[in-house]
């Protein structure tokens, strides 16, 4: 019982050091127990103050046990230092709440609210603010800078794709193939307004894929050309990618990625973030545009194909083949095949077909088609 303990220490006196919290001057005081309180008097026995025992708190997590620093509750500024071992022992026995930590009401709730708020703010920046700014900048960026950005992204993608092997993925350059590809582009280009001239290349990689980059670079993969049954299928894919260029989708995506890379690095714990760059490169290869952007690119492609007097039936067939093969082929990274609505897109292409099976002027001669298929030969 505190009462009995108090009786035991009734005659105990010790010298302590008192600080009033206003000045750094130390005051030597005599400390002893009064009635449920601790009295502090000066060396001439003149009482200075007294503190209720229940109000006394010791400063927590003390490094040494030889000194006890007391703070009276309700006064944040005053301090009493006691180093007499008997007095320290007595205080520990007699003061009921010496080690009690005051909990600030509502602190846990505030921590949760602020934590969720911070998380929400970062999510907002990542998924609303950065895309909105990217949207504006995609239109404002000068074409020359946009092309340079595209070239840089292409280098990064060639590096990332080449990591399984030992060097960057090659851009195929057999002259006849390049000429054939240029003819294909020229056939479509007049029927699709783009803000920058379109350049087309082929990457020496077996993935069935194609993507557009900022500044009008379009890359087809060797795997796509090998998979296609005829030049009109390749032309359909090319027209689709030109649609993305016309709508500046790649620029928007690249700007968005650039804005996100630092934040992802922050979350992953490094700021320039090699890991974050790799993740975003993968995203660029997979070209995860929105469903609306894909549909709009399809509509643009339909228009260009119709304008060029080309049928859309082969394009529709190509979609259906990819849909059928998507489950079986390991070449899953293709953004063409990764869409769940390939059947719907094939149907839309058929609806938009103005040729209705009529005869047409092929997009490439047989000779050019052979040359295009051999563009990666050395």
């Amino acid at each position, binding site marked *: 019982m505190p009462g009995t303990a108090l009786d035991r220490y009734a005659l105990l006196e010790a010298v302590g050091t008192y*600080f*009033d*919290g*206003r*000045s*750094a*001057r130390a005051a030597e005081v005599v400390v002893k127990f009064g009635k449920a309180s601790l009295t502090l008097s000066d060396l001439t026995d003149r009482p200075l103050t007294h503190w209720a025992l229940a109000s006394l708190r010791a*400063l*927590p*997590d*003390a*490094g*040494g046990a030889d*000194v006890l*620093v007391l703070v009276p509750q309700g006064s944040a*500024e005053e*301090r009493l*230092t006691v180093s007499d071992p008997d007095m320290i022992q007595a205080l520990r026995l007699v003061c009921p709440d010496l080690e009690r930590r005051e909990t*600030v009401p509502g602190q846990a709730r*505030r*921590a949760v609210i*602020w*934590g969720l708020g*911070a998380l929400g*703010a*970062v999510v907002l*920046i*990542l998924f609303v*603010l950065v895309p909105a*700014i990217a949207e504006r*900048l995609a239109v*404002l*960026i000068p074409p020359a*800078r946009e092309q*340079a*950005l595209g*070239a*840089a*992204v292409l*280098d*990064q993608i060639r590096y990332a794709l080449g990591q399984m092997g030992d060097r960057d993925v090659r851009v195929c350059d057999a002259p006849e193939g390049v000429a054939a590809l240029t003819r294909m582009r020229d056939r479509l280009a007049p029927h699709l307004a783009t803000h920058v001239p379109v350049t087309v290349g082929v990457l020496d990689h077996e993935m069935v894929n194609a993507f557009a980059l900022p500044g009008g670079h379009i890359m087809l993969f060797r795997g796509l050309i090998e998979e296609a049954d005829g030049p009109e299928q390749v032309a359909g894919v090319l027209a689709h990618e030109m649609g993305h260029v016309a709508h500046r989708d790649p620029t928007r995506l*690249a*700007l968005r990625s*650039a*804005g*996100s*890379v*630092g*934040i992802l*690095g*922050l*979350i*992953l*714990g*490094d*700021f*320039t973030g090699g890991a974050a*760059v790799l993740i*975003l*490169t993968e995203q660029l290869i997979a070209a995860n545009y929105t469903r609306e952007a894909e549909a709009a690119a399809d509509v643009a492609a339909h228009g260009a194909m119709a304008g060029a007097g080309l049928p859309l039936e082969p394009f529709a067939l190509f979609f259906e083949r990819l849909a059928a093969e998507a489950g079986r082929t390991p070449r899953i990274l293709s953004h063409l095949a990764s869409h769940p609505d390939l059947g719907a897109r094939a149907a839309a292409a058929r609806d938009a077909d103005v040729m209705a099976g009529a005869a047409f002027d092929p997009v490439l001669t047989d000779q050019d088609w052979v040359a295009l298929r051999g563009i990666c030969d050395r």
Partner: protein
Amino acid sequence: MTIPPAPVAPSAVQPVYAGRPGVLLVMVLRGLALMTLTLGLHRFWMQARVRRFYWSSVRLQGEPFEFTGTGFEMLMGFLVAVVLLASYLAAVNLALVFAGFAVLDSPLAANLPLLALLPLSIIASYRGRRYLLARTRWRGIRFGMEPGAVTYMRLTLGYLVVAVLTLGVLVPLLDFRRRQFVMDRTRFGTLAFRQEGSWSGLLAPWLWVIGAATALAAGAYLAEASGLSGAWVIAAVAGVPILGFLYQRYAVLSFRYLTAHTVLGEGVRFGSAMRTGRILGIVLPGFALVVALMLLVVFGLVTLGVAVAATLGADLAFLGLVLAGEPMGGRLPTDLDVAIAVAISALSYLAAFLVGTAVTEVVVTQRVLRHQVETLSVLSIAGLDAARQRPEDRAREAAGLADALDVGAGL
């Protein structure tokens, strides 16, 4: 030139370090365990406790220092800093790409965002120090620091350019001006600190660093030119300990010089007799002990785990074969085998991390601090009586930015 240890004048008072290593060890082990369980959230509360421990372990004239910061305010500051940093990084990266620096491409461009963080981290370090001082008391009187983070950032960047342009020779100028800026704004209650002396006082120990680096590079160049292959490798291998020692010596000697030229209020002066040899004598065996203990923990737990696995009927022989480069060891392990193997590796990794971090804190960090405290002396300490209380610093960000920049928000 060597700077002799400051002689302890008759009226000098030396602080005492009274921290109990056992208490610190338990505190850090417990804190790290809770941190693991709370996915890092407990870190702020652990940091507050460890600071209270250290602050209260340092006694000047028998009076302990006091740290009054809380884990809660540090968490709040950190959260605000994360949001600020996220906006800043997004804005900087978008601006860089728009201005024609392709972030994904060249090494220079990739480091531009990091460079853009430099001013921010200098500001953060100033404000972090200001927070620590504002939450430090001695004899009930608060320390503090006057605002000036942005000026400090400009000054640091300016002298950093000077140091780079002079190939590092003028690093002491950078160090001195930064310290002077900080000390001239540091307060104990109403008393002001003042940094006296001159940057040239740091030059001699620094020239040893520069001289040794130049000599190593020149030696390697000449040896390579005269047909000795691998001279650069030898220079690099020899250079790490030599330059490491000389740099540590510079750090100690400049601390001594700067301390000896610090004045507080009317004539309170300081001295330091810190020694490079003692620091290395703490750090090197300390880390050796940490590595040995971590290996012991891993070895012990793996041995124990294998024994437990045997009683459960699991066969971990496949692990040895996998390690030897033989996939699956010719036999497919059962789910139980795999589960036990994963549990053993996870547990021993975690235990080694906990023990390593906690023991490093106790045998390295704490003992270096102890040496630094015990070699300090305060002259004419009676002058401190003149200090009056200063108003509470209302800056609420609690070093969150410094925290976020140091460690990121990684899990």
